């Protein structure tokens, strides 16, 4: 049986500055990839869950543990959703 995989992407809130993304953008420019206009860098979590994933529980995990709600937003991707 396949174990359900839940993906959580954590991204900086749009108003928060992102030095990491800036550094990548700068490198892309120097390497000749001028068509990339902006880069934001976040975290990507892949969780394997026993049984049927419980959306509320996962949402809570994502918002309280995986992300820092002061500066980050989360996107939860449940399997088959």
């Amino acid at each position, binding site marked *: 049986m396949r174990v359900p995989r839940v993906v959580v992407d954590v991204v900086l809130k749009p108003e928060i*500055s992102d030095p990491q993304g800036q550094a990548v953008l700068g490198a892309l420019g120097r390497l000749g990839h001028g068509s990339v206009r902006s880069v934001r860098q976040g975290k990507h979590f892949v969780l394997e869950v026993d049984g049927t994933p419980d959306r509320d529980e996962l949402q809570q995990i994502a918002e309280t543990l995986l992300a820092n709600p002061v*500066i980050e937003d989360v996107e939860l991707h449940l399997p088959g959703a």
Partner: protein
Amino acid sequence: MITVDTVERAVGTPDEPQPYTELGLKDDEYVRIRDILGRRPTTAELAMYSVMWSEHCSYKSSKVHLRQFGDLPRSEALLVGIGENAGVVDVGDGYAVTFKVESHNHPSYVEPYQGAATGVGGIVRDILTMGARPVAVMDSLRFGRADAPDTARVLPGVVAGVGGYGNCLGLPNIGGELSFDECYAGNPLVNALCVGVMRHEDLRLAKAEGAGNRVVLFGARTGGDGIGGVSVLASETFADAAEAGLSPAKRPSVQVGDPFTEKLLIEACLEIFAAGLVTGIQDLGGAGLSCATSELASAGTGGMHVDLDRVPLRDSTLTPAEILMSESQERMCAIVEPGKVDDFLAVCRRWDVQATVIGEVTDGDRLTVDWHGERIVDVPPRTVAHEGPVYERPVQRPADLDDLRADDPAALPRPTTGAELTAHWLAVVSSPDGADKTWVTEQYDRYVRGNTVLAQPDDAGVVRIDEDTHRGIALALDGNARYARLDPYAGAQLNLAEAYRNVAVSGARPLAVTNCLNFGSPEEPAVMWQFAEAVRGLADGCRELGLPVTGGNVSLYNQTGDVAINPTPVIGVLGVHDDVRRRVPSGWRAAGETVLLLGETRAEFGGSAWASVMHGHLGGRPPAVALPAEKALAALLAGLVGEGLVTSAHDLSDGGLAQALAESALRYGTGAALDLSAVAGDAFTALFSESGARAVVTTTDPGSVRVTADWAGVRVTELGTTGGDALRVADLPELPLAELRAAWTATLPALFGSPEVTVGSVPAGTVPTS
């Protein structure tokens, strides 16, 4: 359509209601602004005045007290005193040193990693602004109870933030403090110090002079950072924008640090200084552009014009008022002669630092700001930057102080048997305040730049500043808040004395003082009394020790609900080493050396570590302040170290002799056989009293040390001889170093050891990790 509130509009709409209360201005302050301008302020002007007249920027409650520092006798070493970004002292051979400590308490509670990181970033820019190369940092940290869940949230993030930023800048961390007390539960203290070195001729001041000179903004782009609290302005100005379907981004109250950009800023600035390309320079910290432009103009000839549209933005929805208030990090503002602008910009390009001419110095005495060709600010800059409100706040001795002082620790049960004494010894040494701080310090780079001669766990950080002459500096940072709670006047002096002593035991000559005064709400007369007493104590203490106060920082409103923190004056002392090769460490290296205690031991337990750890007790009187004795001890130590008569020296402070002996033995794993009976009438007093003006030294020539000490009028008590792998104290069970070390090192890892605790407190965007 965005309605911009221009000066013209302000003149035409004198009665338009303005949200000044929400911005923290009092009725009379708002009236004063109207008087100064002869009309109502524009939204942008209101923004500027409100941030610049805040407690944080204007020192309106503390100013009347801080004046005492300026009244201290002028020291020969002092090149620049209070009032600039940081004070500057002459350390000899044409070198000048600038140093300052600053708080970032509240931001570190909200977002520990970023709050602490940007605290380091801010103080480093202050030092850079003086024309100096930053060469080291220190940090003084205070949290709630060590075992409180919230401390497990805040502390790891703060430590990672201090380390993350400082390490990535390439500044060695050479010392600091870590302590815990319930009173900091909702209000941790994060104070960061930076020290920089320059040649005398490199000194730069923050002023704008020479009409026609350009105003250059350089470093990071401006975003909405740090203005979350004043979103009232955004909503106001954007009423129309919202209708038009443009929604302004939410304004964050948290600032995110970018140490990489700051490192580039440092290198670019130093190159710019070396090439003589600036006439004045200012960092952007609290209050951002409002502060930098008004301070530069106010300190100079007075006139400046800025075209705000030229400011490079990260967020195009920012309103002019927000741009003026933004606290985006890693930015600087320079005044550059027109003929040097191209060279200035070229240096910035080389370091990948964005730089933009945003205005110029003007004749006259107005600071004017335009936005899309319309005038939105027209103010006398002095009224914004230097002539803000000043309050003489009421002071009142805290009602509970007499009871607190009457609650003398003499009444507490004491250990009597040897076994009990040893048990208390272990307990004090392994308490969170007494325990090994490696958990924290190993997250900090202490080696970078290759000039660190001493760092934690030694008493002072020592940095070489010249590889040929071996000239160097020593720094210590101390702030015992228990003493200050019992007596803020004496407490400030005791902290001063401790930092002074810490610098002296390294062999350095103490030269100058900085301070960060962390207190509760100034609107509370009892807190204001504590503040006034501490400042008076510090000023009197500095006068007695002959040291200038070169600068510092005041942090008020540190409280949880309506309970203020213990008054916490953190004092930094800078000393100079003519030859750092003579420094001595705090630990014992070799067997067979004589262990001596310098100084008098009295039965003093008020505010002691023993009372706190063993009884959770705070009461009585702090140890007596003995500044003449401190002076004599420091002079003696300088002499002993200079002549190579001692092989180690360690000062006594919290935890008294018990703590000092344990630390000296554990440093290099050398024990000792000791008899403490000549120290005091009883072993308990010998071990746990916290009398000041004391140090433990080791020597191979006790006779000469005795003679020198007698001559200096410092009492010498022989304690025994180094050697072996245990502390063997007469009448006490032997304390094997292995057992002592196990207890001492286990505490912090047991509390914070699991790496999981940092997950979630380290944000995605900003984790430099290597």
